[in-house]
């Protein structure tokens, strides 16, 4: 059974068609890449899956649950985590709180218990803190737990964002350009990290990326979008030589 199935998904901004007839099937444990030129509708696909936008057509099914029409927080509570193209941390909050907030749906106590700090409050808070510190330790950020998120250097902010996404204990993780602004050395580290968390957290990963090195290096399947339309889908080898893909990236190849 597929983990995530998108069938004939379409989305329009006013008259502009951002995504049309988008089909996707992700199986448990897949690592899939989405590539395409700027404005191809890649991030829109992420926003449709996570509920930021509501698909105007089609359906998105996650483990048998229809996602179209649900709020982002309901979808996140189903264990779909994501990061953002331009980092969107809670900048003025501490590193620890950034991770702690993402536990929201998993922390079980009523507002009254929260107001009086009674009942399940203590146990649940301690569990959240322990889990958050564990995640920070995994990403080697534990010593920065009390630091304000905006004070972290860029690379660490990227790492913190992944840690935060993992805090909702996702089954499906959506990474939006995780390697943006990284140098080749950092990209290598990131590739290892993605492979590692995939194993460790038993994740299914869908990622958007412009860095071909990363996409071709770790993705098992790649989907190419252009102007909201799927151009091609297949293993990296096939995509590299696909005429339509080359055309979209390099322009039309003159016929001699």
């Amino acid at each position, binding site marked *: 059974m597929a983990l995530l199935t998108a069938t004939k998904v379409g989305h329009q901004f006013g008259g502009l068609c951002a995504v049309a007839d988008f089909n996707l099937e992700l199986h448990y444990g897949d690592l899939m890449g989405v590539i395409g030129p700027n404005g191809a509708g890649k991030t829109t696909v992420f926003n449709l899956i*996570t509920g*930021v936008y509501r698909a105007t057509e089609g359906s998105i099914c996650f483990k048998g649950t229809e996602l179209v029409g649900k*709020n*982002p*927080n309901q979808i*996140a*509570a189903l264990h779909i985590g*994501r990061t*953002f193209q331009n980092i*969107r*941390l*809670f*900048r*003025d*909050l*501490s590193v*620890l*709180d950034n991770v*702690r*907030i*993402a*536990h*929201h*749906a*998993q*922390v079980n*106590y009523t*507002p009254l218990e*929260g*107001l*009086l*700090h009674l009942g399940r*409050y*203590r146990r*649940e*808070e*301690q569990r*959240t*803190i322990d889990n*958050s*510190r564990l995640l920070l330790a995994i990403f080697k950020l*534990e*010593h*920065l*737990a*009390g630091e*304000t998120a905006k004070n972290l250097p860029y690379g660490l902010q990227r790492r913190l964002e992944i840690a*935060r*996404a993992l*805090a*909702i204990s996702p089954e499906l993780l959506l990474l939006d350009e995780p390697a943006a602004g990284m140098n080749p050395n950092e990209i290598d580290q990131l590739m290892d990290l993605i492979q590692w968390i995939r194993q460790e957290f038993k994740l299914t990963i869908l990622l958007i990326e412009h860095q071909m090195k990363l996409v071709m290096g770790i993705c098992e399947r790649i989907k190419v979008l252009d102007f909201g339309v799927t151009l091609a889908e297949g293993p990296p080898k096939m995509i590299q030589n696909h005429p339509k893909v080359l055309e979209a990236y390099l322009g039309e190849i003159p016929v001699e």
Partner: protein
Amino acid sequence: MIDLLRKQWNLLLEKRWLVPALLATGFGLAFVIPEYHLLSVYVQLILMYVGINIILAVSLNLVNGYMGEFSLAHAGFMAVGAYTAVLLTMKVLPVTDFPLLFPCAVLAGGLAAALLGMIVAIPSFKVRGDYLAIITLAFLMIVKSMIENIDFIGGPRGIPGIMKLTTLPWVFFWTVTLVWMIRNFIYSKYGRGVLSIREDEIASDLMSVNTQQVKLFAFMLSSFCAGIAGALFAHLLQFISPRIFDITKSTDILIMVYLGGIASIGGSILGATLFTVLLELLRPSTMAALLSWLPSFVFDPLNEHFISHLGVWRMVIMPLALILVMLYWPRGIMGLREFRGFIPRRDREAHHYINPQGEEPHGAIDRH
């Protein structure tokens, strides 16, 4: 020497008995002071106003500071709480026979305000920033003109002759309870949700925070506290009219919040105290009394032009002070920081990075 003192001070702050001890002392004083006239009636009155203003500032800070919205409706919630409680004590409950019914009336005022807070929370699901500020302003006007047009509760003339039921122990009790509850709320998952909404609402929604629910709870708690403050205020002033709860009242609370610093309970307490005391100091009679020790060729209270016009001048001095604070101290006294005493031990320890020297951060620490 100073290091040693500071170390002792920090050790003292860590003691578990400190907060209960302080509260017990405070509560004891609140009982003893009126009983044995340790302070003049006037000073007692100011203390009670300080308490009420602390409730107002801390609860408004929940929405304006922690959540980052701009609500002007606080005086409206106060009015609802005040009128509800006054109607109960004057017409329904036999308070003279059973004094313990007074807190029930105050609680009812708070609950009525919370109900209205729920209604204000609903537009906040869709609207943010300036637009929400305008909606809350409209709400304030609706409340005011509704009260003005209901003859049964005195219309624009208000209600005179309210019993003076608010006493120092009651004010102390409500202030401590409500500040404690707001602090608890902030250091719960709902409070962290409130903070994340201020930082980035969409990201917070995507990180599984139920933003609508969190906003609803925050607005309701904030208006609940405002309602209780209103009920206490009414039974202290012994007269209420719609004019008392207009935009200037909301502005006063805003000044306390921004003077003390946004997103800080300690700041709001400081801001409310400073504001109330400063406003009282600027009264002509207080100023005259304060300066009367000066020889009369330097200062003659009866003849002093400045003093006799202070009533007008303080309406210039306070806003001017606010402008200066905003210009040179834009985050207020404690902006985004908190006294460590207000942060739960668990939170402090969780954020704590034990550095190789094993040193602890001291004094007021950055909580964000």
